């Protein structure tokens, strides 16, 4: 049976409990469920918000490609990936990945894999809005994120 991921790109917030229930409701075969939530941190009080720009259409398509690869590679039973765009205040949620499998290792690895590829291949860009009123700095891509992704190949 082909497992289809749930992929959403949206400006509104998401609820982890609701998304988790959507996976587990009515099922008895799932043994492990790992969820990762990425938040907008305030960088020690310096950052008020992030502006998330995305490539409409490609963002969903790329997230789906990554999700399908994770399902295949780790034999996941379910996978949800939600990424927000627009202005996101510090403390708010940005991204959610939930992976389900019969045993824990595949669920941990599946969620980790999706996040590593999401950060380096899904077309999203972050711009910083600072507490002192300045804005306009685009967040730079990190070599550490490329290395994290490369460990899977």
């Amino acid at each position, binding site marked *: 049976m082909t497992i289809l991921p749930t992929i959403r790109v949206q400006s509104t917030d998401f609820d982890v409990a609701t998304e988790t229930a959507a996976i587990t409701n009515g099922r008895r075969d799932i043994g492990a469920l790992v969820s990762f939530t*990425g938040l907008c941190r305030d960088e020690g009080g310096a950052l008020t918000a992030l502006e*998330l*720009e*995305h*490539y409409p*259409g*490609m963002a969903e*398509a*790329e997230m789906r490609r990554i999700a399908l690869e994770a399902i295949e590679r780790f034999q996941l039973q379910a996978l949800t990936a939600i*990424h927000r765009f627009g202005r996101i205040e510090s403390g708010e949620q*940005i*991204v959610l990945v939930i992976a389900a499998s019969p045993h824990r290792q595949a669920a941990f690895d599946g969620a980790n894999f999706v*996040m590593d590829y*999401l*950060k*380096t*291949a*899904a*077309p*999203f*860009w*972050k*711009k910083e809005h600072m507490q002192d009123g300045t804005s306009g700095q*685009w*967040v*730079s*891509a990190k070599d550490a*994120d490329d290395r994290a992704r490369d460990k899977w190949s």
Partner: protein
Amino acid sequence: MVKLVYFAWVRERIGKGEEEIELPADVRTAGDLIAHLATLGEEYENALQFPEAIRVAINQEHVEHDEPIAGAREIGLFPPMTGG
């Protein structure tokens, strides 16, 4: 005619999010396209002065700079991604 779409600081420096342009016949690859655009004016030159920092997608799929662009409907140019 091919539709070009720009994102993040590439979009800001060029000064527009998208445009349709006619390409000379000798612009064959994604890398050729970046080099050609960089000759179209100061804004383009400023956005594309470091070609190795530019990522390319053809019809909404990532490609390398040596990818042929023949038949492309939409080509996206943007900086390395920073989502997640």
